[in-house]
């Protein structure tokens, strides 16, 4: 892996549940993120996938310091940013920017596009001298494929895809090194999604960006990521390169998740094995003992209730190496191919 730009270790975020007004006491906690480790290399894209409530968005917020972690550390170029404050924090924030999911609510409707994209310069005036801002903003609009003449328009005059481009331009304004994108295309129409993904691809090579790309759509994550982390109930259950995760998954949850994704190929529906999980995700206030996936797992045994499986390369894969030898938090990790491997090239065209 390339030199790490972000190193997250044992990151935890618990939200206390309290009872009473005068004598407030804590009666429990929502364990939204419960011990997450990962590294992001320079110029790399790490995809984080998981279903709603798995904690992926909370991780994103902690990365950009919108939430303070309960425990653990986030090292940016070796420095733990969770303990910074004041000027030092502000300086770091410049380098880690966020792109939000909903392009309708993440842009202030009463500000013009020029003001929105230029706002980061008000907070960090050192990034652009006053007289130079309008030109900088227009340059940014051009970079994301919007007409630079649009600086005086308001967000409602744009379509969803264009608004997401505005959000990306704002994220790029300070020339950050890391962009955390939380579901950046899931609110967009199919034909517009591809435009925005291609834009993010292009910007990455142009500005040497590192992405943390958070999404629930596994196909999009595979397309854009070099490495993928699968989250379940506040923890990473499996992580590896895109080929390792998609073609050689070893964790039962990853296998179920992948097998549930509809593939746009009607020929595949007859000979595809579907793993239909029973039940719902348990509540993050009441996490099962041992392996947190065991309540829905078809492989679960007594040991799974007792011992928390560590996220590591399973011993039985370690000697032989190969694509199955990647981190998987399962006592009974075993390879199982669930994504059909296409023999006949790339669909239509």
């Amino acid at each position, binding site marked *: 892996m390339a030199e790490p730009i972000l190193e997250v270790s044992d990151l935890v975020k618990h939200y206390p549940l309290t009872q009473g007004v005068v004598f407030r006491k804590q009666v429990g906690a929502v364990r939204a993120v419960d011990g997450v480790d990962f590294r992001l290399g320079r110029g790399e894209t790490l995809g984080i996938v998981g*279903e*709603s409530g798995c904690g992926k968005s909370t991780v994103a917020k902690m990365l950009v310091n919108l939430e303070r972690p309960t425990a653990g550390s986030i090292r940016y170029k070796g420095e733990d940013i969770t303990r910074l404050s004041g000027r030092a924090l502000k300086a770091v924030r410049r380098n880690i920017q966020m792109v939000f999911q909903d392009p309708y609510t993440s842009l202030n409707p009463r500000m013009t596009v020029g003001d929105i994209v230029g706002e980061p310069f008000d907070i960090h005036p050192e990034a652009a001298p006053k007289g130079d801002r309008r030109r900088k903003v227009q340059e940014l609009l051009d970079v994301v494929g919007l007409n630079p003449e649009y600086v005086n328009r308001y967000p409602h005059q744009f*379509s969803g*895809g*264009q608004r997401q481009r505005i959000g990306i331009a704002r994220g790029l304004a300070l020339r950050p090194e890391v962009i955390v994108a939380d579901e950046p295309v899931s609110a967009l*129409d*199919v*034909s*517009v*999604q*591809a*435009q925005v*993904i*291609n834009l993010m*691809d292009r910007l990455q090579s142009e500005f040497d960006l590192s992405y943390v790309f958070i999404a*629930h759509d*596994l*196909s*999009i994550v*595979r*397309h*854009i990521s070099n490495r993928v982390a699968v989250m379940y109930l506040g923890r990473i259950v499996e992580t590896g390169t*895109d*080929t390792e995760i*998609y073609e050689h998954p070893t964790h039962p949850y990853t296998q*179920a*998740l*992948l*097998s*549930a*994704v*509809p*593939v*746009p*190929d*009607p*020929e*595949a*529906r007859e000979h595809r094995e*579907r793993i*239909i*999980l029973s*039940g*719902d995700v348990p509540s993050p206030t009441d996490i099962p003992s041992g392996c947190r996936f065991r309540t829905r797992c078809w492989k679960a045994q007594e040991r799974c209730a007792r011992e928390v499986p560590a996220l590591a390369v399973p011993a039985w894969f370690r000697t032989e190496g190969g694509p199955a030898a990647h981190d998987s938090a399962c006592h009974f990790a075993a390879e199982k191919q669930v*994504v*059909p*491997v*296409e023999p006949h090239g*790339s*669909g*239509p*065209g």
Partner: protein
Amino acid sequence: MLLEVRDLHVEFRTRDGVAKAVNGVSYGVDASETLAVLGESGSGKSVTAQAVMGILDMPPGRITGGEVVFRGRDLLQLKEDERRKVRGAEMAMIFQDALSSLNPVLTVGDQLGEMFTVHRGMSRKDARAKAVELMDRVRIPAARERVKQYPHQFSGGMRQRIMIAMALALEPALIIADEPTTALDVTVQAQVMDLLADLQREYHMGLILITHDLGVVADVADRIAVMYAGRIVESAPVHDIYKAPAHPYTRGLLESIPRLDLKGRELYAIKGLPPNLTQIPPGCAFHPRCPLARDVCRTDEPPLYEVSATRGSACHFWRECLDG
């Protein structure tokens, strides 16, 4: 044919003028058949379904032409009280957002039971028993206890099951499902689609599945109708369309989605945006975004050309598109 929509036109009056949401849509669905209506937001796929169900907001909506022939009668000619007897009993609808489609202050048992007290004149007690039976059928665990609970006490997937149970209650011949799994997580989506397919087999229902997800379509549909700017641009059996699309819009959609089983380089992106429905481009509505567009596309609106006995494409150059 169980249901046949013929040349349906729907308009909306808006401040910016008349929005032509549906412009001559025709499709049909048979018993036991699944028709997928595929389109992006604003393509008219949901408005067509609302007109078929008779739940279109009028005004501002207005049906300006066409027929909806269901079991031999044109529903658009029926009086509202006759229409109401068809709705729920003979055809039912499942919506995307189960939480806002259910009444938050009534228990799910009361809401399911209402179908039987209103349509079948059952007693409350019998209706309650029926509600439990239905919840069992859509595989909600502990139905006897949960029948007394309120919608907010159920998870998203379970709420969608309740919507399905409600749609199934009177054993309708046709179900229209408008993005039934879009709000759900993938593993739950698989559970719900699985259930819907099983129930369809069991009751031989016709199913119209409205969606924007090409993956879901490939998994369950028999036929597809692709909509763009209020018209059907391509209609075909599901296998044909994925093998070789006969309309440049369908081709663009298929090439623009990232695939789980393939890691490509750059995604194909359809340029531009879907049109504003108050100003639909003349000729073929897709021409400003189309790679095959020529002069004739800017002036002449393409009819739905017959590609084969079972396929149609509204593109002047469908042959070219089919050949790649």
